[in-house]
């Protein structure tokens, strides 16, 4: 699909398929069009292109199914709970009147809010509000649940817990879900599949593990975690760097991207770098070293031994990705 | 914030500029007569005498009540009212008027005890729509003809109407007056707050007639309207064509007795009397002033002989009867 606001292209040849029952995450920096994509799926925005939900075309040339007929559940960033209704009435809003009255209780149980149905949303904590929003979205058994930055309003401790619970709840209900976030860790930890978006395009679409270990380009590598780049030249199947020799089919100028956890340091033997800066985290440390020529590379290693600035060390990378240098 | 302070200063400045009061205090007139009618005259007085004047405009009865409430502390120097009843009800607060002034006016227009002097004459009339086919009244009792049900306009709280009711009490006694008022009420008259709207409504044909003072129609004509209505001076010579003066009195203990007397004198000058006759269409109270357009000679109108000074004594009763009859 395509979508533009005036001259600004919000979505550009955006194209994705989601498997039923899985959790897909749209990940990207703010303004990359991920929320727009979600709103197009929900029907709150119009766009060119087509959207099919469970084989039913809801958007296409001459087709526009209004949001109330799409069978899509949405969890909003601020939850958008109806402040004037009780929790139970919030959850029951999307249910037909003659539906099983126990359904609301089931959902309360599902999201772990048993007995809180008579509270007003304002009387709940942020995490509880979030779960009400989820229960409300799932109440009419939608074909897909859309979650717009669902964890951004929770503090860090709560976030991990709620994220785990959300995954369990969705799995239990076998609901297909699309989640939007700008938080890489969140995306990697909670999703079956992640689509990394940049400027309205999907740059890479893969499982979390693949994304991390095989980023499609240096930008994705840097966006998903910490990475350092070295310049090198591809020659006869290899690229040679200060950190070692890496296989590549590319020829000419290349960029070699290494992650800190793949960089090892050792003292004594043939030093090729000087420690510039260290940060100690307890369970590990992050050591920044300067290579001859000034390029800096980070290394995440165990807490021992401790390095001090000025130490001469040997740095070596066990693993790296090689990309063509940008012209 | 600076803007706010500037505005505050501006507001105070404007107020200061508008506050015309000097130290001696201007001559304060409580006027029960409308500003529209009286102000031009007062402007002229200020110009000619050099005396500064402040006027408080309100209803005549309202001002009479205010004067009674204020008592001796009042700042008023002159009470200029549109009906003898209001003047009479504050007679105890008024100083006697100079005989020299009183003598210039026909005695029937002034207070017997000389506490106030009539300044212009007005006559109660029956105003009617020229297109009406209802029977025009020949006596005040004909007004209650059932044919007029729902077609008659009255202003039961207006001073002139109350003065008219007071006159009826003096002429017929309380009982008969109440009976007349009840008959009037039974005929479901349309009630107004003042005389002008009655004349407007009659002119427009919304009602067929009403009990008002004679000059409202003449003034409406001067404004460019009034072509659909006519005044009827009820011929029987009963209270229906009562002649009532507007008048003025000087407050006892005023700190400006000379200026106050000068003002009353001014109201009786030829110039003022001419103004009443031609601009407000009232009858002059001194001899030899020409009448305004469309005004009949006062001597042609048959009117009852009522002791104006006694009107005030029954004003309270009139008010009570009007409300007892269910008109307010």
């Amino acid at each position, binding site marked *: 699909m395509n979508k533009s606001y005036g001259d600004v292209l919000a979505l550009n040849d955006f194209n994705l398929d989601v498997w039923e029952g899985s959790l897909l995450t749209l990940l990207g920096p703010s303004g990359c069009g991920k929320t727009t994509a979600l709103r197009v799926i929900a029907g709150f925005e119009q766009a060119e292109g087509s959207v099919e939900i469970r084989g039913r075309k809801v958007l296409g040339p001459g087709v526009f199914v209004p949001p109330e007929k799409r069978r899509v559940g949405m969890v909003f960033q601020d939850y*958008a709970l*109806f*402040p004037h209704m009780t929790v139970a009435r919030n959850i029951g809003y999307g249910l037909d009147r003659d539906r099983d009255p126990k359904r609301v209780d089931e959902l309360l149980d599902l999201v772990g809010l048993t007995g809180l149905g008579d509270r007003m949303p304002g009387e709940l904590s942020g995490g509880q509000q979030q779960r009400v929003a989820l229960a409300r979205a799932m109440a009419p058994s939608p074909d897909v649940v859309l979650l717009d930055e669902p964890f951004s309003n929770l503090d860090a401790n709560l976030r991990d817990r709620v994220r785990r619970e959300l995954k369990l709840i969705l799995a239990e209900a076998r609901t297909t879900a699309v989640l939007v976030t700008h938080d890489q860790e969140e995306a990697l930890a909670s999703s079956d599949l992640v689509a990394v978006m940049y400027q309205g395009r999907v740059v890479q679409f893969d499982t979390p593990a693949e994304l991390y270990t095989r980023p499609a380009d240096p930008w994705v590598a840097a966006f998903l975690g910490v990475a350092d780049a070295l310049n090198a030249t591809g020659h006869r199947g290899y690229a040679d760097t200060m950190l070692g020799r890496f296989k590549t089919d590319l020829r000419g100028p290349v960029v070699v991207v290494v992650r800190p956890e793949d960089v090892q340091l050792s003292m004594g033997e043939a030093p090729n770098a000087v420690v510039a800066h260290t940060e100690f985290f307890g369970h590990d440390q992050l050591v920044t070293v300067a290579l001859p020529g000034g390029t800096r590379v980070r290394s995440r290693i165990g807490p021992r031994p401790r390095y001090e600035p000025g130490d001469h060390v040997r740095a070596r990378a066990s693993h790296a990705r090689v990309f063509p240098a940008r012209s | 914030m600076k803007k706010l302070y500037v505005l505050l200063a501006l507001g105070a400045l404007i107020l200061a500029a*508008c506050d015309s009061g000097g130290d001696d205090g201007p001559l304060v007139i409580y006027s029960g007569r409308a500003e*529209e009618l009286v102000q031009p005259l007062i402007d002229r007085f200020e110009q000619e005498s050099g005396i500064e004047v402040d006027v408080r405009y309100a209803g005549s*009865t309202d001002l009479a009540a205010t004067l009674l409430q204020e008592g001796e502390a009042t700042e008023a120097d002159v009470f200029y009212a549109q009906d003898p009843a209001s003047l009479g009800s504050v007679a105890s607060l008024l100083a006697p008027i100079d005989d020299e002034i009183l003598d210039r006016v026909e005695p029937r227009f002034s207070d017997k005890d000389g506490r106030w002097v009539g300044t212009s004459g007005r006559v109660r009339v029956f105003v009617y729509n020229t297109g009406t086919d209802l029977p025009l009244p020949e006596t005040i009792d004909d007004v209650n003809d059932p044919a007029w049900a729902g077609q008659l306009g009255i202003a039961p709280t207006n001073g002139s109407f109350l003065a008219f009711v007071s006159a009826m009490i003096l002429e017929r006694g309380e009982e008969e007056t109440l009976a007349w008022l009840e008959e009037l009420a039974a005929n479901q008259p349309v009630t107004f707050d003042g005389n002008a709207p009655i004349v407007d409504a009659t002119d427009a044909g919304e009602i067929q007639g009403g009990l008002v003072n004679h000059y409202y129609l003449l003034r*409406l004509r001067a404004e460019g309207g009034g072509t659909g209505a006519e005044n009827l001076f009820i011929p029987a010579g009963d209270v229906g064509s009562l002649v009532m003066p507007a008048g003025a009195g000087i407050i006892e203990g005023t700190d400006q007795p000379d200026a106050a007397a000068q003002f009353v004198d001014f109201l009786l000058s030829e110039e003022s009397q001419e103004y009443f006759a031609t601009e407000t269409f009232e009858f002059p109270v001194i001899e030899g002033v020409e009448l305004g357009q469309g005004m009949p000679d006062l001597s042609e109108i048959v009117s009852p002989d009522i002791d104006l000074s006694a009107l005030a004594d029954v004003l309270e009763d009139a*008010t009570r009867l009007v409300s007892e009859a269910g008109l*307010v």
Partner: protein
Amino acid sequence: MTAGPLTASPQAKSAARRSPRPGWGWWLAALAVLAPTMVPPLTLLAQVIGGGVGSAVSLGRLAELLAGTVALTVAVTATALAIGTATAWLTTRTDLPGRRFWMVTAALPLVIPSYMAALTLIGATGPRGLIESWLGVAIPTPYGFLGAWLALSVFLAPMAHLILTPGLHAIDPATEEAGTGLGAGRWRVFRTITLPQLRPALVSAGLMVGLYTVSDFGAVSLLRFDTFTRAIYTLYAGQIDRRPAAALSVVLMLLALCILVVERRTRSRAGYLSPPTRRARRLEALGRGHRVAAFGFLGGYALISLFLPIAVLGYWIVRGVGAGNEIGPLWDEVGRSLGVSLTAALLAVVAAYPVAMVTTWRRRRLSGVVETSVWGVYSLPHIAVGVAVIVFALRGPRLLYQTLALLLAVYVGMFLAQAASSIQDSLLRADPDLEDASRGLGRTALQTLARVTIPITTPGILAGAALVFISVIKELPATLLLRPTGFETLAIRIWSSTGEGFYTRASAASLALLAVSIVPLLVLTRRDLAST
């Protein structure tokens, strides 16, 4: 301790803010402002208890007045809310072209006082009215209930519009989308989500409109519909004995307080969630048919509420001048109206500031009482206040009797609530910690007030001042009773000229009043325009 992954339990977030500073200075100032406002109701009560009611008004008459007043209030409130909701919704939530223009035109009639509205109705209808002169067909003038209902509804709708517009802005649009996403159609979303969330705004708009109607004097008098205010004035002006007017004033006061109590009871228990993060607002796309209907509605409303009054006034001026009438200079009246309104507006915001402070940042248990009494005083019908203050001034501080100072004090007291609520609004939007930040940086309390607190609440101060300005310049009954001798304002001029049938001058004064009120009204709408 259980086996398994160890987690540090998150620090319990303290729900309650730190308790506010006591703010004795603010409280002292607020109480000093409030104490004198209790004078009118207490005086009236004392007068009636001590002096009796005079020739009492009959019970039948009382019932008649009560029925008339209540019926008119209910009808006008319902109609004005309906019109105001429609104009506010169309101009804030739809993609109607020219929304900003319509937003202002829908608010403009606020400057038209009720007596001018009545005057318009009288001038437009009836034989030889404006409508007949244009169309050749006369619509009979709707005197009585119908006329009062029409005039008040049309000209009070802007009040509802102005209160409902920010109310609509405060609703998180995502809640409406959530409703749509859950399968609710447009109408169900409006009925079950938008409207209930708008309820607090609707209730306060209803309170404003209702109180105005109960205490309206100009429209009911000119259109001859019997309500308490009209009866009080005729008793006051038409009788030497003033006790019956005072007695009726007490009844009217109680009626107004009843409305206030109903409003307090109607407040919903729904707590409000934290305000939504600012994000682009989605506008309701109107179809072509709806768009035409919306234009018709807004255009028709502007025609009746703005064009018609100005046309009638112009028509009268042209007709009157043609017949040789003088308009006369109105500069003195303009100056007095402007001066008294500006001064009252600024005094009111100064007086309201401590009141707003003790009901927001310096909130204590007593704050509820303060709020209720400010609104209680606001709800007092002006004519009753006028009657009471005259009694008070004649008995007590004679020095104040018939002075400008007393009139200004009465204005400030009567409209304190308007200024206070605007300032409250601004204070609630700002963070009280800013004060601490300033004090922490070495500023004294007064410096903090002047350089931090007042500047951040300037929008509220300006809006409050504008609101009071418009109210004062339009005010009639209290001005009529309390003005110093010779202090004729535009409102008084319009009233007295109309009563004596001098429509030319009344029209000229009306146009002058409108012209002077436009600027503060634009101040009021600027806020809404900014958030569009």
